[in-house]
């Protein structure tokens, strides 16, 4: 074995250990009994329910608005397209605290649109709706990026074939483009959902951490971590299981259809 082979092998093992040991540790430190106990705790159940509700709603918004937007970005050549692409990806590299400040500056009571929102009796800050806004803001770029790539990879002649066969652009999108891009769209959904489930900083700053109203699972874990470390561990284990299950099912769903499409 050459030195080169040995060193790339060692690098892979190091990466694998470093990335999996903390996740394994959560389960090794939590007994199944503790896991069940923590699920029995009403505040933990509230947090879990809230996380599922808000991430589902955020994902629905991202899919409904993001899919046509990504299609537009992938298929139309217009002036300033690369600028638009960079702008929608910007939240990817934004530190969560900055995202929270930004949301407050834009939609907070004293923000740019604070007056307009108050006039329309829309209250976001410290509200469940605020959690959804924060989740959409941080998670949408993950979906958009994947969706643009997936739509760009669809063979243009297949789209044209659909048009010559009597299907309008909208019908073609539904019957050909989305089914052809489904595995990429599923991967984007999984990434965005994962990001939304783990969202912490922007939610904390924009929506706060109130039990039953805005305290999602990551905020609940942080809440416990100073005085109830085992409780925090147990809730973490639940979050890992829930995210893994969600991501796996989305990937399998899209991957299965994608496989059939191939």
């Amino acid at each position: 074995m050459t030195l080169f082979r040995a060193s790339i092998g060692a690098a892979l093992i190091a990466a694998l250990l470093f990335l999996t040991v903390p996740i394994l540790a959560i389960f090794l430190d939590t007994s199944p009994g503790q896991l069940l106990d923590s699920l029995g705790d009403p505040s933990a159940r509230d947090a879990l329910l809230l996380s599922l509700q808000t991430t589902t709603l955020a994902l629905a918004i991202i899919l409904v608005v993001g899919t046509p937007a990504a299609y537009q970005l992938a298929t139309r050549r217009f002036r300033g397209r690369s600028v638009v692409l960079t702008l929608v990806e910007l939240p990817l590299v934004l530190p969560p605290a900055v995202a929270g400040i930004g949301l407050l500056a834009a939609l907070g009571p004293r923000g740019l649109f604070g007056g307009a929102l108050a006039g329309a009796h829309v209250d976001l800050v410290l509200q469940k709706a605020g959690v959804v806004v924060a989740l959409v803001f941080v998670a949408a770029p993950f979906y958009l990026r994947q969706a643009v790539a997936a739509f760009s990879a669809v063979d243009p002649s297949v789209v044209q074939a659909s048009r010559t066969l009597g299907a309008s652009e909208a019908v073609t999108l539904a019957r050909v483009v989305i089914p052809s891009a489904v595995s990429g769209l599923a991967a984007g959904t999984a990434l965005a959902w994962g990001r939304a489930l783990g969202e912490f900083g922007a939610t904390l700053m924009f929506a706060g951490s109130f039990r039953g109203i805005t305290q999602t699972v990551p905020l609940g874990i942080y809440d416990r971590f100073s005085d109830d470390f085992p409780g925090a561990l147990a809730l973490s284990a639940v979050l890992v299981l829930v995210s893994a299950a969600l991501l796996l099912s989305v990937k399998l769903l899209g991957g299965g259809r994608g496989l059939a499409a191939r």
Partner: protein
Amino acid sequence: MGSLRVEAEVELGTFGLDLALDVEPGHCLAVAGPSGAGKSTLLRIAAGLLRPRTGRVSCGDTVWLDTARGVDVAPERRGCGYVFQDYALFEHLRVWQNVGYALPRRERRARAAPLLERFGLTALAEQRPATLSGGERQRVALARALARRPSVLLLDEPLSALDARTRAGATRELAALLREAEVPCLLVTHDFTEAAMLGDEVAVVDAGRLVQRGTPAALSAAPGSAFVADFTGAVVLRGVARPRAQGLTIVDLDGGGQVTSTDAAEGAVAASVYPWDIAIEPAGAGHTGSARNRLLAEVASVTAVGGRVRLGLLAGQPLAAEVSEAAALELGLTPGTRVAATWKATATRLIPG
């Protein structure tokens, strides 16, 4: 049923496309030219997939595009049957769903069935395109394009995605389909032999311009330029082949006469020979030398193309030969001269079809 007329001007990178073509119902015009000559662009303009800077496209009395009057009918409302170069099948749909794509949802399965039957796809109806061979994919693409009873048929290199073995059969089937078609058919190909076998007429296009249009035989016999003379390549003679001893095949030509080839074949064939492989001698001379093929012919046309002379010959079927200017002068070749055209069996290719 109306004629298809396409006139278009469009910028294409290094050159501009400037073409006007028309095709009558029941006819097939094969647009042939080298790669990048703007052939596919013409089809895309006809189908409404590309809007030219200026142009007019009409089918019968219906105007699909008129840039001067601001008319531009969407592709889905033009009713073009389009066969794409790589067939562009919907990989996520089954064969029957591909064929029935253009049909209303409720009638899809029922109305796809006779098309599947006609194209020999019934047994493959539940398969997905990825599992099909090249020839099967081509038949799916044809069936799909015909399902909506299109008012024109547009075919982009319909045989180029096929391997040589499949191509012979597919050419025969496609030629039969085009003969039966009652609508105008516009086909583009980079291969003149293919154009000659599928088109009633061939339009040779180079760098976005129409160079010459005519029947395949007329183009071979009297090319308008050296480009057309080179591009037309081989002359195609149709006949029926039967094997003979010593590795030779005899072809009884439709319309009389026989040619010999070293290619093996049996049944209906197209025998091809390059005009520059054909030698001309006075009709009275005896048969000498190694050339096994000798057809008596009458010179129909004499066309000078850049230092050489293309002879259009009538010998049962139209034939073309190419000789030097000096030879043409020495033999006194003018229309009406009786000559013998000779060439070697080894210069005769046989294509099943």
